[in-house]
């Protein structure tokens, strides 16, 4: 995939053009322009408050924005969370995003809400990825460990067979071993054709998994490119990624 990150191309499955957003008086996004190609694995990096989470929320329609969000090159008007989910955008928000009062199976069934029915093959596929979810399928999601809940959130997203998966801080609060497992699963999902956009505080982790990356600073894209290039560039690492 040889395209310069930062400018849209005809191949873009998802594109943001000049997106701005505010929470009341506080502007969270000033001007975010980025493009995600089909099959890409994009990391969005940046410090706390840089606007990473808001960028995802802008796409899924959970925050009011100005500017354009394009899917497959055409602008999506009046975005709502349920509408974007129907268009194949799965958003797993920070904090696992599971229904803690419902069972693991019910959570997975909800993932397939946009599908006509719950396919047993899809369920089996999720359980192959995350065998521990199978063991705990009748348990309430709230009783799972943090890592298991993140797996459940991913499993639920898989059930929706999304074209684009938006993930917010999947590593947050998890043990390193569990984080490795989660990112291993993400890589497999990406290899099977799912486009993934992940927001991460842990830049080195995300850059190792992703193909492309964008760096946000105070609500603007300040840098974008091939993940391995960003990782190799020491001055970039120093000034933007802090490691």
């Amino acid at each position, binding site marked *: 995939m040889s395209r310069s990150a930062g400018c849209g191309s005809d191949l873009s499955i998802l594109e943001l053009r000049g997106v701005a957003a505010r929470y009341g008086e506080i502007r969270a996004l000033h001007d975010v322009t980025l493009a995600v190609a089909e099959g890409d694995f994009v990391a969005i990096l940046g410090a706390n408050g840089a606007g990473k989470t808001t960028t995802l929320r802008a796409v899924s329609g959970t925050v009011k924005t100005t500017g354009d969000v394009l899917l497959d090159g055409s602008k999506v008007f009046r975005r709502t*969370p349920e509408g974007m989910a129907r268009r194949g955008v799965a958003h797993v928000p920070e904090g696992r995003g599971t229904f803690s009062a419902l069972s693991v199976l019910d959570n997975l069934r909800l993932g397939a809400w946009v599908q006509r029915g719950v396919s047993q093959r899809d369920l089996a596929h999720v359980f192959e990825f995350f065998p521990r979810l199978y063991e705990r399928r009748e348990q309430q999601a709230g009783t799972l460990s943090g890592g298991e809940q993140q797996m459940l959130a991913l499993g639920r997203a898989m059930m929706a067979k999304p074209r684009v998966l938006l993930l917010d801080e999947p590593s947050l609060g998890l043990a390193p071993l569990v984080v490795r497992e989660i990112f291993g699963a993400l890589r497999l999902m990406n290899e099977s054709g799912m486009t993934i956009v992940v927001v991460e505080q842990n830049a080195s982790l995300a850059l190792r998994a992703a193909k492309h990356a964008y760096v946000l600073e105070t609500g603007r894209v300040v840098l974008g490119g091939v993940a391995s290039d960003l990782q190799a560039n020491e001055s970039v690492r120093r000034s933007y990624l802090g490691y």
Partner: protein
Amino acid sequence: MANFVQQVVSGLASGGIYGSLALALVLIHRSTGVLNFAQGELATLSAFICWTLMDHGWGFWTAFGVTIVLSFVGGAAIQQVIIRPIQDGPVLGVVILTIGLLIAVNGLMTWIWGGAARQFDGPFSTEPITVGGVAFSKQDIGVIAVSLVSVLLIGLLFARTKLGLGLRAAAVNPVEARLTAVRVPAMLAVGWGLAAVLGAVAGVLAAPSLFLEPNMMRTVLLYAFAAAVLGGMDSPIGAVIGGLVLGVLLNLVGTYVEWVGGELRLAVALAVILGVLIVRPSGLFGRAAVRRV
């Protein structure tokens, strides 16, 4: 002993009615945090509709079926037209709106049908059947059966169907539900519709013994509140069991504790509410509020 069993069964009959109405309250409360004070008047309105249809010569069960459908549509419409515009505001505002709805529906019924009590001929005769030397009223058995079947059907809808899954998801976590493409506003409307259906069942079952008039369900609503608090405001199964327990308890206390009699039953119900709130605020089956991290 025979008298005791009789009193228990007749308590279960009242309890089935309290439980149905309590379940209606819980369905709305757990999805929106709102106590619907109009639930009783809406149930009475359903009973009036059923009565009117029967008055036009319809058989009971046909009239009942049509009433159920109309109640569902009416409940959903009320949510969409009256509640939805302010549902994102403070919960208290919505609660006050339901009190307004109570007064409005009550006035509407008085305007259309007048305030006089009417006889409502239910599907079950009041004659007794004798089982093992104990005489039960057919009406009590019928009321228990119909209320439990309705509650069971609603339970199956929630537990076993895709719609039920969406209703539960929208109730426990509306933000997340929207991200999985569940249409939360539609689910809230369906929830109000189902609550109205349960209310209709309670109203129609109560009408033969209470006589039909605009204030018919007012005390029943208080019993339903007591049942819901007893079972746990957020537990559907708790509401039903709370209703049955309360029905039996009130009947036994009214029969065996001389100084309570019929008049102080309402006070017993209030004592139950107070007792539960002090000893176990989450109710028998409720969970303490889960904090999300």
